[in-house]
């Protein structure tokens, strides 16, 4: 990367590690070298003590018991462990899981694997704001349903699902409630027990902690939830996840959780103002700009915007030497398919292809947003000058009536 100032607006892909988190981690690479499972010497004791301390810091952020935090390698592993682990543990009781079409691939692909293993999965639609229909959700429950898995906040749009209402439906029908809360934890209040969530997946690197460490919250009482381990080995983490603990990573995760607990309200207030400024300016500067997903039920730092008649990847190329954003999901942008999340919101493929996700973070400045408004506006105008469908639109051609040659 060059010396010129780069603007990072891809915090939903990953957040920079907070320097205070890095400081907390450093001693645990060399000075405290032990394995937290070494029970018979001071090196192990020191490592175990550090892990316990971090577990408490994370539990406090969730208003949970530290014994309910199972460390993993990240949210993908936590999602896999929760879904497959519940399916294997409870399949005598039932084999049916309900989830949404807009979930992260870690959930959808785990569900696909469960179907291969013989389970049944219902994938519910969302409305044009990206929200679950609670009536449809309740109707989908059968006497074989063991789990409902619904993400807290969507990675592409920041849309927040009605967690309290979903929790009430799960409680009423005695179904376990799992949530992939990767994009929400550390950014907004996420207290699973208060909302009847029994399993919750999240990760350090989306909340200014290090990459490579995540956790699964597993409810311990009323009901006591168990998951079948997906890795065989030494039986760490109450037998649910074997493998030597990533002590420096966990220490960083804990520090990030404590900072988030103290600062997330102030961060959210500042970032929502900046996000609104960006969104308002883009809508004001140009025609045919659309915000995707609910604006009312949305994370404070995210906006997903479509610039009609401009292709997202090409648009990004006009400013990606200076600004880092995503078109659709970073996880799928290597493919040529438009975002399945936006398609599920009912966007036509053309608008889905025109979308850019801006995700702000703790280190985003006012100047970043001012420069972004200028460069994105310039980029959209450049791309529209090049766009034949923009020209046709301006000439009043009915684009829906054009017979396109599909390829």
């Amino acid at each position: 990367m060059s010396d010129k100032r780069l603007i990072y607006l891809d915090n939903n892909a990953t957040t920079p590690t907070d320097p205070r988190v890095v400081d907390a981690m450093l001693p645990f690479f060399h000075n405290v070298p032990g394995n937290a499972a070494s029970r018979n010497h001071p090196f192990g004791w020191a490592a175990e003590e550090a892990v316990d301390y971090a577990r408490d810091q994370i539990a406090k952020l969730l208003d949970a018991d530290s014994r309910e935090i199972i460390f993993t390698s990240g949210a993908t592993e936590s999602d896999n462990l929760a879904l497959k682990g519940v399916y294997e543990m409870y399949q005598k009781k039932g084999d049916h899981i309900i989830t949404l079409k807009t979930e992260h691939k870690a959930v959808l692909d785990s569900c696909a694997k469960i179907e291969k293993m013989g389970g049944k999965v219902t994938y519910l639609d969302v409305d044009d704001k990206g929200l679950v229909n609670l009536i449809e959700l309740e109707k989908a429950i059968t006497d074989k349903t063991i789990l409902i898995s619904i993400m807290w906040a969507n990675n592409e749009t920041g849309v927040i699902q009605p967690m309290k209402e979903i929790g009430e439906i799960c409680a009423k029908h005695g179904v376990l409630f799992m949530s992939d809360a990767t994009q929400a934890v550390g950014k907004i209040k996420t207290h699973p027990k208060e909302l009847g969530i029994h399993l919750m997946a999240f990760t350090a690197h989306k909340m200014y902690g290090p990459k490579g460490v995540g956790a699964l919250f597993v409810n311990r009482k009323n009901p006591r939830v168990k998951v079948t381990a997906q890795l065989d080995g030494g039986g760490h983490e109450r037998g649910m996840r074997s493998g030597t603990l990533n002590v420096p990573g966990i220490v960083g995760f804990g520090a990030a959780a404590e900072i988030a607990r103290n600062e997330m309200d102030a961060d959210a207030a500042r970032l929502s103002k900046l996000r609104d400024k960006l969104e308002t300016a883009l809508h004001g500067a140009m025609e045919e700009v659309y915000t995707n997903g609910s604006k009312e039920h949305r994370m404070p730092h995210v906006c997903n915007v479509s610039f009609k008649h401009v292709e997202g990847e090409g648009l990004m190329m006009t400013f990606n030497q200076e600004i880092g954003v995503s078109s659709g999901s970073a996880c799928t942008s290597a493919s040529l398919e438009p975002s399945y999340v936006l398609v599920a919101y009912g966007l036509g493929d053309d608008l889905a292809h025109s979308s850019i996700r801006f995700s702000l973070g703790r280190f985003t400045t006012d100047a970043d947003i001012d420069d972004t408004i200028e460069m994105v506006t310039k980029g959209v105008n450049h791309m529209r000058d090049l766009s034949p469908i923009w020209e046709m639109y301006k000439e009043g051609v009915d684009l829906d009536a054009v017979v396109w040659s599909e390829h």
Partner: protein
Amino acid sequence: MAYSEKVLDHFKNPKNVGTLDKSSKTVGTGLVGAPECGDVMRLQIQVDSASGIIEDAKFKTFGCGSAIASSSLATEWLKGKSIDQALEIDNMTIVEELALPPVKIHCSVLAEDAIKGAIADYKSKNA
């Protein structure tokens, strides 16, 4: 994915962006692709009716950098060629010239289709 220097150059300074009068008898227009697929290319040629030489070419493209570069390059290559020479432009030559990766080969196919479409339109007007 990193783009080649040539793609970046065509993307930043596209050649021959614009619109020719599609109702003119000497202009052929090819419009290929679909907004749903993320690529629409419009390529136009103006042919000197006496010599049969393509004297001007213009494009507009909705698409990624590779699609824009492919159509920009195509317009450059078209100018000065006869209709028959233009029909020989092969998508793989575009792929080689721009060093397109496999996932972007469809952009060059689209450019070749747009060339053929523009020529077919010109021929039908002058049949």
